[in-house]
């Protein structure tokens, strides 16, 4: 199943399927936010924004508005 990263729940993980390169800064890609990499939602601040992620071993936080432009594949349950 494919969802946007913004819909991920705490503790859930998925595989990055696509990033919209117009909306996503190069810096985020360079930090490992690339298709094929594993992403886990570690923690959320109040109102689920910003989101504290573990992408392929790199821990970083992004805002929900950015997460909307990242598509992920959820593992089949």
């Amino acid at each position, binding site marked *: 199943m494919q969802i946007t990263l913004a819909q991920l729940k705490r503790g859930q993980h998925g595989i990055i399927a696509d990033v919209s390169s117009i909306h996503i*800064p190069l*810096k985020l890609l360079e930090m490992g936010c*690339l298709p094929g990499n594993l992403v886990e939602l570690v*923690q959320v601040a109040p109102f689920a924004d910003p989101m504290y992620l573990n992408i392929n071993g*790199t821990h970083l*936080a*992004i805002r929900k508005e950015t997460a909307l432009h990242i598509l992920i594949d959820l593992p089949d349950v």
Partner: protein
Amino acid sequence: MSKQINVALIGNPNTGKTSVFNALTGLNQKVGNYPGITVEKKEGICKLPRGVRAHIIDLPGTYSLNASSLDENVVIELLLNKNDKDFPDVAVVVSDVENLKRNLLLFTQIKDLEIPVILVINMADRMRKKGIVLDIAHLEQELNTKIAVVSTRKREGITELKELIAEYRDLSTQPCLNASEIDVEYFEKLRATFPNQLLYKLWLVITQDVNFGKTDRNEIDAIHSFKTKSKTDLKRLQQKETIKRYQFINNTLKIGQTVDLASATDLRIKLDRILTHKVWGYLIFAVILLTIFQAIYDWSSVPMDFIDGAFASLSEWLKTVMPPGVFTNLIAEGIIPGLGGIVIFIPQIAFLFLFIAVLEESGYMSRVVFLMDRIMRRFGLSGKSVVPLISGTACAIPAIMATRNIESWKERLITILVTPFTTCSARLPVYLIIISLVIPEGRILGLSYQALTLMLLYLIGFGAALGSAYLLNKIMKLKSKTFFVVEMPNYKVPLFKNVAITVIEKTKAFVFGAGKIILAISIVLWFLASYGPGDDFNKAEDIVTSQNASESLSSEDLQQQIASYKLEHSYIGIAGHAIEPAIRPLGYDWKIGIAIVSSFAAREVFVGTLATIYSVGSDEEETIKARMAGEVNPILGGPLFNFASGISLLLFYAFAMQCMSTLAIVKKETNTWKWPMLQLFIMSAFAYVVALLAYQLLI
């Protein structure tokens, strides 16, 4: 024969690059600025084997050579400009063993520039805990480099690193992958057009706006005309390049690194569960702030009292041992009290920098950014604005420089504009002395009234910053892309050496920076207070003596009268009287007026100025505080520094924009005088109105 080589330390943020720098250079380092810009330049000297000396530059942390900030620009400008006197003979790329994959991206880019590169894998002491095993020989072969496995915490691997640096001529300058495969046709064309240039260098120049200095300006202009691709196409290519590099890195690490997750014990998860918790996270942050303020107040009072007393005795002692005359007076009444006014605050400033350094070093600051982002956004700020606002409590200048990692221009501009409201360490002297004069001693719930007042002033500062940010956000119609990426580094016990060096360096910079201004102003003030025009000043003795002829004053009282009459008719007295009408409604006399005017150079001058002015008027050995307490309001009687005028002064200093250096830095960072002038007039006018209201309501 001894020779010197240039070494550049490069690495992602949070890789312990500065620890490596400190381990190599010790206290043999200096912090300056890159010419023309305000990026901090850290350099030092390190002795290598066989009599080689290395000049080491600690470049700003960056994730890649695609610069997105002024700090990152410095890195690529240096690496692309062979004519720069600091151009490295060898680059040392520092990586963190836990984030090797991401750190290697930058490494592969620097390899493409065909500079000799050594790879440092830092924090090796964590390897076992994280279940990481490295095949160094394989990595060295694949990456075409030499690797030093280092633990700055355990002081391991530094000798080996020095050895590698000394032998830099043996390093390969071959790239480890061919990035031009991402668009063969395009890069072939590029190569054909500029056969003498390095392909990757051309690519970097094409993809970003970097100022490469005057030397190869013509060359670069020629390249700019080669921009045949649209911006979106270029960005897509950059993305392709990044993917390509990661593919190479993944393949290399598949054999070179094994991670046994089962043996990894993670403290991070446990700490994050509490420290970034929706409730506990904020509570802990509040407690930390409260502790800091209480500590600054309580811990530094003993050394401060000592310094205050010591300077008063020094002045007195100098007067007795030096021959009487103008020169002695200048030193004992002008320079020494002025300097005392700055030295006294070293303990507090050092404590403040200590706390900020520990918060940064431990990795906790990033959690604060994460917790505060949503809240700060309501005010038009970013979570990253918290760092400038907190470090603004030390000094607004580094704080404004720390806004550079805020990605959105609007959020950054608002942060720059409101940061001077936070209570910087230069306000601290003013606050402390006035608080001790007008706020009674006593405690409530274990916290002293005076400490609580101080904390309230800090809160007022933050409140003013947030309030004005909210207004600016509503008023300013600025469209700018907003995005926000913040790395959440692993928690670390701060290294004592790193914290100590930060505290020493920053305190030194503060004392010498402010010290110069204060010294100059004290000398000028002393002259202005010791000389005056006309008969009123020059014949003060006769005038006062004849005025008091009927009364039988003791000679001591008479001397006092003469001294204060002289001061009133000196140049400074005349200037002070001229501005008195404007400040009298605020409860100040002309002496305070002079102190406020000279504070526009730098706030901490206030105490030094009063110390100098009062010192000229009196003969006795007294501390600054005792002199201020003894001042009498010339019109209303009673102490000059009473509750109403004290509060009014505190509020004036809380809001007024009184720091030339901050204005200069805002001009540099925003590239126009518009914003600093706006700050100067709006903040100072607001300060005047608030101080006026406070005095009139309280009196």
